[in-house]
């Protein structure tokens, strides 16, 4: 069995309640931090742990914290990004639904480290029942003296609140999240200034993913020195992977960084192989935004070595033969799936979710979606494939936020590795139509 730092007690009945959580070592990190450590000690511990942001970008959490400006008399805010919307990613939901106190505990310790006295969990609006779970757990934590004034007699005050979104993928981008929390449209802001200097209501702000904040708990409990012994040199600790697609056993798993991709897909402890005795055709290892990998590059690197579940191994080979760990949204395609059709599906997703602020993204995502739609429907031509690559280049790097890149990369990667399939669609329009269930109609996305 792999080591579990976050999900160790997930199967304990009643673990979502304060008392059971406490009985299983809950809130020890709060006691340790508030009683024995200075805020800077906590920041340093997280820095030394090598924790990288678990939301997708993988930016070192401790470093992000150290950028936080601390002008006199100005409040600072910690925001938890629970706007989990990256296709293939459903790990934060699992964590919040089952272990609400783990997130709350992580937020108390992190708020203490950053000197934030008011923190928010911004949760996607569709997770409204989880908002209720969190608020119930927060009320318990207040009642037990772990939230509110003078926590554990330390002199540290913290109020923790939950705010829902309204159904917009873009609000997972940190400046869009801040805009949304200010009650506005989720249009990402120009940077600089970065949120660490000017964030929520113009005050210094840190935005961290649910899993990142939860991971602060074991880091403080065990110490950074012990934490870095888990995982690999460049990918410390454990990671939640949400596995989906054509698997025997999809679900959320906590893995020790550095287990092999082969073991994760086929191992008994994990996904148990491809459903219906089929072969694997492709893998998107880190959420819809990261490049797709063809069968021969999934379990092995281009060099022939085993590919591992870690930041460095999944990105080995760059975009030519690698991908990214991203958010841990692990999407598996069996041999019967159409990469072209899935690429269209994701292009539609990004076109739908573009906030519309930057022309390259607003127009480009729509063009890609329409060009792909005609290819899938047997109305494409060979020039369309190059046209997609061309649109791609014009979006990538030309937008305020990374949604443009996120929309462009999957299309580029699909063409890179599955160009023959795109060409097949162009050359076999009638068979393409037959193969694509329900594709004759244009599915509208909103009422």
């Amino acid at each position, binding site marked *: 069995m792999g080591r579990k730092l976050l999900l160790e007690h997930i199967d304990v009945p009643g673990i979502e309640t304060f008392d059971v959580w406490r009985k299983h070592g809950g809130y020890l990190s709060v006691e340790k931090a508030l009683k024995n450590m200075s805020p800077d000690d906590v920041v340093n511990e997280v820095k030394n742990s090598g924790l990288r942001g678990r939301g997708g970008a993988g930016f070192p959490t401790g470093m992000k914290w150290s950028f936080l400006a601390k002008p006199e008399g100005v409040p600072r805010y910690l925001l938890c990004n629970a706007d*989990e*919307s*990256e*296709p*293939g*990613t*459903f790990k934060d*939901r699992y964590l919040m639904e089952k272990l609400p106190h783990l997130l709350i505990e992580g937020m108390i310790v992190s708020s203490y480290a950053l000197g934030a006295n*008011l923190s928010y969990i911004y949760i*996607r*609006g*569709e*997770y*409204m*029942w989880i908002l209720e779970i969190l608020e119930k757990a927060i009320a318990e934590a207040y009642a037990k003296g772990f939230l509110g004034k003078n926590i554990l007699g330390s002199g540290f005050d913290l109020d923790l*609140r939950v*705010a*829902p*979104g*309204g*159904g*917009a*993928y873009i609000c997972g981008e940190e400046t869009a999240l801040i805009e*949304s*929390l*200010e*009650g*506005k*449209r*989720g249009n990402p802001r120009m940077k600089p200034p970065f949120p660490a200097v000017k964030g929520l*209501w113009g005050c210094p702000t840190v935005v961290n993913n649910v899993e990142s904040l939860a991971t602060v708990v074991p880091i403080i409990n065990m110490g950074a020195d012990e934490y870095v012994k888990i995982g690999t040199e460049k990918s410390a600790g454990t990671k939640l992977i*949400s*596995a*989906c*697609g*054509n698997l025997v056993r*999809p*679900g*959320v798993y906590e893995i020790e960084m550095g287990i092999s991709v082969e073991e994760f897909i086929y191992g008994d402890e994990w996904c148990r192989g491809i459903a219906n005795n089929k072969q694997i055709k492709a893998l998107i290892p880190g959420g*819809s935004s990261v490049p797709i990998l063809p069968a021969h590059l999934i379990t092995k690197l281009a060099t022939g070595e085993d590919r591992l579940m870690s930041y460095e191994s999944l990105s080995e080979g760059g975009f030519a033969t690698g991908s990214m760990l991203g958010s841990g*949204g692990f*999407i598996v*395609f069996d041999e019967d*799936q159409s990469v072209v*059709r*899935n690429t269209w*599906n*994701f292009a539609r*997703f990004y076109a*739908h*979710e573009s*906030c519309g602020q930057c022309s390259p993204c607003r127009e480009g995502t729509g063009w890609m979606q329409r060009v792909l739609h005609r290819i899938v429907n047997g109305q494409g031509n060979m020039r369309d494939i190059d046209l997609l690559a061309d649109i791609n280049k014009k979006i990538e790097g030309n937008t305020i936020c990374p949604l443009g890149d996120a929309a462009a990369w999957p299309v580029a990667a699909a063409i890179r590795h599955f160009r023959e399939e795109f060409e097949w669609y162009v050359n076999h329009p009638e068979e393409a139509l037959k193969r694509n*269930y*329900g594709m004759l109609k244009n*599915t*509208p*996305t*909103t*009422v």
Partner: protein
Amino acid sequence: MIKTVITQQDRPVLSPEKMAEIQGVIQQFPEGKSKSAILRILHIVEREAGGWLSPDTMDMVAEILSIEPIEVYEVATFYTMFNLNPVGKYVLEVCQTGPCMLVGSDQTIEYIEKTLDIKVGETTADGMFTLKTSECLGACGYGPLLKCGIHYHEHLTNDSIDTLLTACRNGEVEKY
């Protein structure tokens, strides 16, 4: 598609309890930052208003928050969860993004369309169901799935869809 008819009755009457709940949401933010409460208030008010936001309902939210109506319109039109046209008693939102498509969401949508004799975006003649599609709902390992009320219904099969529709008709499922 039901035609939008704007009348004064489109503004819901909020009970004292609901008004207190809304005031509680506003108090979650520092003084002078009450606009931050807008999304949660829109969710609450939409539920009270029969599942959708009329311009009149949005004006009411503007009054509650002491902001301009346009500030509410621009938020309500940006976030896709809010319905800007009347909907049926139950809104079924089927996730149609990649991972769900891999496990058959297209077939799920077609089955519901056939069963209810409506297309995506339409409401049944008896005003009972509206069928919508949704982009990634964040439950990729448990697809195909749909959202009805605040809850997800996962691992859908034709049988479980039938059961859900019957439960809705019998009033056993929470609305919106």
